[in-house]
């Protein structure tokens, strides 16, 4: 785009806000349809067991109940088989055996697995009836963690013979042959936690005898439709997926879950609209979990601090099944273990284990948050061992601007090569140190002041964005001269309408108010790819940009056809007017001529936003409580479309990361029973936990791979948090020789490290 941009780059107040601030948002539970029934899912209270019987008779006779469906009812419609949820990302034939049935048939493998669906006049009645469904389960030994899984004593899939699903390998150079004067190996762990969006999941499905409409679609409606259609034996064209407002995505909301089949199934069987809204306990139990992995990591360094090799063995607890995007965290942790650093030799094996816990999926910065914790912790240990300042250690090892594009490790099955696209990583580090006032704060390093130890740390990160293969858009000029932009991107609360409006307004040189962005639903475009992997701004924005370019061409063509103007001489002016030798067509006239254009943007190069974060913490040795005194993060997103929303993404991501580093834990006991089923047990950051978060967004290193020059920026904030906080704690407690190696850094854990 050009230097004449009026809107791109400006802190435009969000368009969405006018609805959302006034109570006019429309989330899935706000949808009421005539004759609508309510579904409630009966879930397994057993972690692992064989289903001996499900007695639905009493429930079926309860007031208001229309139907109770079990796996048998669903299998009866599928020749004895129940549909399974396919892998959306990085599918492999050998993973198909571990796909989740949309409802348990013979065996349950985690607490919360669907056993039956009750449909009633009201949700309360459905819940009353659900409590009367009698389930008999013959308990099998639970598999509570990777360690137990690896023993293969109790098998999630007996026919497979082992709980190990697959081992991904990321390779670069020859790490196994790398030698150097300094070697250290440590084991680190990250706990199970996840997005826990403020709005729980939900769907309203409606069958009119011919077509199925699913309201409440999110994230990837086209993909979800493509998965759902064969399960229901319907052509995709007979299913409309309609987006609603989405109360937070973060990777979790909008993937295909069992209910994405069960609710439409019930609606079609009953020929009535059926609503299902996940309650908070179900949300904690069963919306994709993430993050739980252990890593044995070895570093080989030269005596000057250059990292010569990283060797890792990661165990990923994927829960009971391989869900739609479960392959992403184990692949990412391996591929991105080196982060923004120049590491010539890498060998990481990432083994996925089945356990009797809820299945995993992606959560903001999947695999990257974990990788950064493992790597940055070990880097600080190595720097200290080598007598090198931790900042200097990073300066030495960051990928240099002149090395771009820089190849990362290649991960196998299926093979994926990656390269960092552009950037001056060192500049971001120096900027962060300056803004954070690192040199002044260093005086406090490790000191005990008024009963609290102070520590500071710094860490560098990259985030991936702009997943392909492509995105689509269409721009139509309406008869009143206003512009409608249809986008394949989806809204997950990130402000996609505002950003795409800014891009369209500049591209077409029209005021923001003239543009309306409609997005996501399968009714707008023939195909669309949605919002994940920080792709909406880059991919959706570039598609809109291309559509705008095409629209101008269509205007010229239309003017030539209808008014015999010479297409090559038609000038497109401000306000989307077309002029030719003193004659002019207004936007309204163009709209009456039905001028419209499609555009798409195809891309197989990921963008890599990058940055550095620094933290200052205190630790109370008496209680183990960590307080965050200051946090500064710098991220270069290539091109800033809207500084308000870009910074908003970063600060929000940082605080989510602090939750993961310090508070949040989807805990299970040794029997596979779930312990974090309330928001009083799953502890997310609140308004007074982390009052000092500062963020700076830069746009100094445009991506060479898209016309906007933008890079996905929705996830970077979260990526370094675990590593930076743990390193600051380690620095604070250096005199006590405390080395935190496992998240979350809870007061009892820190206290035990100090006093143990």
């Amino acid at each position: 785009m050009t230097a004449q941009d009026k809107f791109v780059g400006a802190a435009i107040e969000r368009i969405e806000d006018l609805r959302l601030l006034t109570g006019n948002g429309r989330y899935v539970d706000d949808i009421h349809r005539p004759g609508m029934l309510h579904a409630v899912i009966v879930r397994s209270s057993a972690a692992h067991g064989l289903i001996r019987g499900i007695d639905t008779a009493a429930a079926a006779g309860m007031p208001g109940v229309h139907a109770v469906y079990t796996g048998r009812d669903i299998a009866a419609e599928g020749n004895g088989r129940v549909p399974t949820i396919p892998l959306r990302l990085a599918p492999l034939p050998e993973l198909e055996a571990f796909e989740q049935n949309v409802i348990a048939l013979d065996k349950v493998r985690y607490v919360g697995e669907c056993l039956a669906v009750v449909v009633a006049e009201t949700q309360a009645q459905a819940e009353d009836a659900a409590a009367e469904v009698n389930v008999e389960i013959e308990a099998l030994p639970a598999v509570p963690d990777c360690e137990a899984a690896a023993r293969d004593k109790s098998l999630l899939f007996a026919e497979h013979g082992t709980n190990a699903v697959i081992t991904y390998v990321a390779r670069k150079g020859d790490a196994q042959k790398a030698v150097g004067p300094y070697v250290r190996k440590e084991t680190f762990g990250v706990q199970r936690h996840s997005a826990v969006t403020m709005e729980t999941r939900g769907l309203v499905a409606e069958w009119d005898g011919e077509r199925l409409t699913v309201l409440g679609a999110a994230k990837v409606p086209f993909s979800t439709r493509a998965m759902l259609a064969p399960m229901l034996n319907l052509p995709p064209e007979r299913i409309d997926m309609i987006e609603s407002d989405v109360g937070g995505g973060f990777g979790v909301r909008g993937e295909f879950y069992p209910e994405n089949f069960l609710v439409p199934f019930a609606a079609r069987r009953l020929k009535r609209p059926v609503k299902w809204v996940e309650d908070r306990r179900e949300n904690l139990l069963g919306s994709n979990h993430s993050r739980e992995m252990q890593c044995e990591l070895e570093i080989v360094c030269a005596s000057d601090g250059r990292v010569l090799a990283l060797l890792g063995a990661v165990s990923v607890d994927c829960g009971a099944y391989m869900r739609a995007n479960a392959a992403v965290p184990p692949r990412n942790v391996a591929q991105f273990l080196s982060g923004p650093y120049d590491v010539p030799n890498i060998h990481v094996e990432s083994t996925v284990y089945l356990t009797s816990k809820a299945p995993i999926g992606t959560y903001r910065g999947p695999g990257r948050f974990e990788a950064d914790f493992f790597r940055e912790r070990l880097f600080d240990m190595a720097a200290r061992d080598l007598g090198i300042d931790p900042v200097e250690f990073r300066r030495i090892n960051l990928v240099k601007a002149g090395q771009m594009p820089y190849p990362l490790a290649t991960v196998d099955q299926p093979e994926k090569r990656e390269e960092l696209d552009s950037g001056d990583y060192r500049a971001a580090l120096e900027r962060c140190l300056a803004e954070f006032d690192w040199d002044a704060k260093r005086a406090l390093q490790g000191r005990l002041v008024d009963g609290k130890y102070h520590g500071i740390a710094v860490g560098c990160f990259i985030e991936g964005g702009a997943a392909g293969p492509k995105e689509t858009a269409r721009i139509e000029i309406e008869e009143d001269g206003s512009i409608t932009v249809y986008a394949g991107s989806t809204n997950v609360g990130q402000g996609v309408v505002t950003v795409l409006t800014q891009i369209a307004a500049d591209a077409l040189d029209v005021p923001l108010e003239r543009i309306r962005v409609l997005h996501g639903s399968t009714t707008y475009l023939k195909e669309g790819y949605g919002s994940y992997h920080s792709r909406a701004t880059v991919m959706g924005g570039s598609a809109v940009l291309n559509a705008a370019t095409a629209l101008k061409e269509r205007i010229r063509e239309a003017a030539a056809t209808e008014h015999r103007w010479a297409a090559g001489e038609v000038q497109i002016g401000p306000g989307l007017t077309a002029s030719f030798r003193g004659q002019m067509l207004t936007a309204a006239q163009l709209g009456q001529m039905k001028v419209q254009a499609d555009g798409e943007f195809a891309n197989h190069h990921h963008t890599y936003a990058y940055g550095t974060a620094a933290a200052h913490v205190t630790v109370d040795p008496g209680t183990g409580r960590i307080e965050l005194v200051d946090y500064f993060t710098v991220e270069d997103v290539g091109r800033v479309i809207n500084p308000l929303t870009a910074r908003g993404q970063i600060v929000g991501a940082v605080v989510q990361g602090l939750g993961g580093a310090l508070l949040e834990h989807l805990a299970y006991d040794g029997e596979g029973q779930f312990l974090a089923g309330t928001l009083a047990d799953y502890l997310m950051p609140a308004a007074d936990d982390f009052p000092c978060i500062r963020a700076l967004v830069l746009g100094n290193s445009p991506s060479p791979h898209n016309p906007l020059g933008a890079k996905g920026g929705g996830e970077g904030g979260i990526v370094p948090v675990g590593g930076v906080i743990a390193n600051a704690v380690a620095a604070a407690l250096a005199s006590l020789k405390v080395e935190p190696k496992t998240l979350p850094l809870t007061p009892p854990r820190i206290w035990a490290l100090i006093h143990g």
Partner: protein
Amino acid sequence: MLKALKIVFELNGNTVEADVLPRLTLADCIRHHFMQTGTHVGCEHGVCGACTVIVNGDAVRSCLMLAVQAGGARVTTVEGLTPPEGLSPLQASFRRHHALQCGFCTPGFLTTAHALLTREPDADKERIRHVLSGNLCRCTGYINIVEAVYEARSAYAAKPPMNATAERP
């Protein structure tokens, strides 16, 4: 099923009545009976604060109040804080500060902040943070919310709030 009870209360300045079952929470009554869906339900166990409404001037969790307990009360939701045109100063401050992303928790923050500033227009940032700690937001990291509420104080200090259904004697 048990018998429905008649309740009459004031919702955003209008007298409303309904026959409700005792088991119906005020949140569900407002949302699914009166179809004012601006009030959101995030946990149904009194932790997240998304369902906060103002009852007789006090911010309360409407998932932890029965509809039958609202009989005779003045209830204000986000719809009641919204002027006929545009945004209230508090809402405008939220927009200016980018104090919302997905918007799901936002009505609860607005009602809580409105109740707070109506009573304590001089609340400092620490007080604002403490009060807002009863509302969870997963998107913003809270920094901008605190700034937005802090900046909106002047609208409460200078004059009675623009839309004061919660405060009418």
